[in-house]
């Protein structure tokens, strides 16, 4: 396993796209969050979940993370490198495990920067949009338990998205198709849940969708009205990621490279 990790680390580290994608994850996530926060304004009638609002950029950041994760596997297939890799390391699941481990590390690193930037943007911009203490909105702070959970959970969310994407890419092998499948599964559930009016269907769709369930971790108020509790929601996403990795792993074992 150590050799596998070292080999995969060398591949990941020496690709220019890795650092670019991680940087893009942070930049796009923070950019979208800042734009969204700057475009929102205090409304006397509604109560805004400001930590969640500040983390909106994760909706985009996850797409960049999934590209990184998909490329880790599909690049090997598009260049034919996979044959070399599997010749050098015939234990295929070890290769997959090594890739998953390194992706986790990369996603944690990128995620911490991205989430930190989002919260900072929220902390700086929200008060000027009317979300002030007199209006009942405290300054965003990680000392607040729910905000800390939302922030830490968002980093974990990005990790699970990267593992899910890796699993899908291992099963599908082609990068374009894999990204289409990943983003289709992520984005379809919230849209479907939005237009379905039957309350039972609506709730179930939000409970099983990888994005809708996973992002429950960002909620800090009105937890009882969520379709699924924050950690259970992240658990659902973990099941998706586990199922994708298992499918990918089995196919990797069974198929010729």
């Amino acid at each position: 396993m150590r050799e596998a990790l070292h080999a995969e680390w060398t591949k990941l580290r020496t690709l220019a796209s890795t650092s670019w994608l991680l940087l893009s994850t942070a930049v796009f996530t923070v950019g979208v969050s800042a734009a969204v926060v700057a475009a929102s304004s205090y409304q006397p009638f509604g109560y805004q979940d400001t930590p969640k609002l500040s983390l909106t950029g994760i909706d985009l950041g996850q797409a960049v993370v999934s590209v990184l994760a998909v490329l880790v596997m599909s690049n090997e297939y598009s260049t034919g490198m996979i044959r070399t890799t599997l010749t050098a390391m015939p234990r295929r699941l070890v290769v997959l495990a090594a890739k998953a481990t390194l992706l986790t590390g990369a996603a944690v690193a990128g995620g911490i920067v991205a989430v930190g930037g989002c919260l900072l943007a929220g902390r700086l911009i929200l008060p000027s949009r009317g979300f002030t203490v007199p209006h009942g909105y405290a300054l965003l702070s990680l000392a607040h338990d729910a905000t800390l959970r939302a922030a830490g959970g968002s980093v974990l969310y990005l990790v699970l998205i990267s593992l899910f994407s890796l699993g899908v890419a291992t099963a599908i092998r082609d990068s374009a198709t894999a990204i289409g499948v990943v983003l289709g599964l992520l984005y379809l559930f919230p849209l479907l849940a939005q237009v379905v009016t039957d309350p039972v269907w609506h709730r179930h769709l939000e409970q099983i969708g990888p994005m809708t369930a996973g992002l429950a971790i960002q909620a800090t108020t009105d937890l009882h009205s969520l379709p699924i509790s924050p950690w259970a929601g992240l658990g659902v996403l973990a099941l998706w990621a586990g199922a994708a990795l298992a499918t990918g792993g089995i196919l990797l074992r069974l198929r010729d490279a």
Partner: protein
Amino acid sequence: MTTGIIIAHRSEAVGHDGFAQLLRAEWTKFRTVRGWVIALGAAALVIVLLSFVSASGSRFSFCPTGPSSCTSRHPAVPTGPGGEPVTDSFMSVHQPLVGNGAVTVRVTSLSGAHTSGSPVGGGPNGTLRPTSQPVLAPWAKAGIIVERDTSQGAAYAAVMVTGAHGVRMQYDYTHDAPGLPGAVAVSSPRWLRLTRIGDIITGYDSTDGSHWSDIGTAQLRGLPSTVQIGLLVASPAYFPSGSNNGYPSMATASFDEISVRGDLPTNSWTGEAIGANAFYPVLPTASSWHRLSRNAFTITGSGDIAPRVGGSIFNGDIGGSILVGAIPGLIVLIVVATLFVTSEYRRGLIRITLTASPRRGRVLAAKAIVIGSVAFAAGLVGTALAEVIAHHVLITNGNYLLPVSGPTEARVIVGTALLLAVAAVLALALGTAFRRSAAAVVTGIVLLVLPFILVYTLPAGDSNWLMRLTPTAAFSVQGTQPSSPLVANAYTVTNGYYPLEPWAGLAVLCGYAAIALGAATWLLRRRDV
């Protein structure tokens, strides 16, 4: 793939470099890759399938007076004299009038409140906390009315004071004329008068009861000799800004100095909540009337007399089924369109293609035409089938669908197919510019799909710019919900209202595609392959 090479080779050998040959070569490349043809079919299929799933999940459930009174079929929606669907529910205190006559009244106050209950319509946009401060809906109405009869959808003419739009004369649900501006109060009461001569109704208002001004005249064709005259109070759903939801509201008005000229066979006033418990967010217990003296009343009412509009609070279908179906179809087409060019780079075929036809701009144009056409064809088949199936399923599930004209229906279907075609061209351009499928696919999906997710999760209104400026604006082509200046509503994307006109929205996407295609052509010419 090999066929493409042979054709390109042959065309050069014969000495043709015509655009038709180029188109044929690109078409051959597309149709001979089995996976792409299958994906094209899958795109059409997934549009139909997801529309079906979405429509199946939209079941109507209406509980007018509590959980025990639920029905799974929408109540009848009244239609006005012009045949259009209308809202017609209000508190009325009326009596019959035979022949010509006039009714005059003074309104001294109009106040309102909205409910303390949960918001109507539901939705994920945060929890709304109703305030205890009194809120008067902008289109709350209190005044006098002449009606053909008291059935819903009957022809009428009325003059009224409103919450925020001054005195108005309105008739037959869609017609409106302004009278005196400003709010009504004890210190500034409003006198209102309606006169009836045959089928001509004229409305007047006054600030002192002696100097009258004419607001407007309505001709109610075929008005019978006996009509209903009366007082009305209505208060439509109230929409806090930034919300997709509304609250039922009620209004209370004080009337005095009532005088009626004409033949009154009963000469006694009857209170009646018109259309109570009908298909409108009305408060069942809100309507009441108190007679204070021989010619003075206090009346509380809820509801509206207005054209019907769409949106979740009105329990109508918002046309989301086709939208949800189109999005996975769009994702499949983005992937195929990207692969149509990036696979040439991956396999080195691009060198042969560009050797065979060195005018690179024309190669890209041929590819764009081929991929645009096949995407349009798949989209047209998928959307047309989806529209028919979703419509049928929604009706079967008891949903109310606002009537949509044939041309509008055709615009939604053809417009969605065009959207898919232009999106495929955009993805092709991105693929050419990036040369890498991963970057192109993710950019295409993020540009076209992500704005929807943001619009649905952000506070209503704050995110309208996304539907104006991003390629997602093209989905405006699916908008069919009617709006009216006479009805306050959450005219938001979530409720099926797009900030841009249908074709203007599609033009935004075309602009993005044109810029991307221009950049891709420039890069393709400039770069070595």
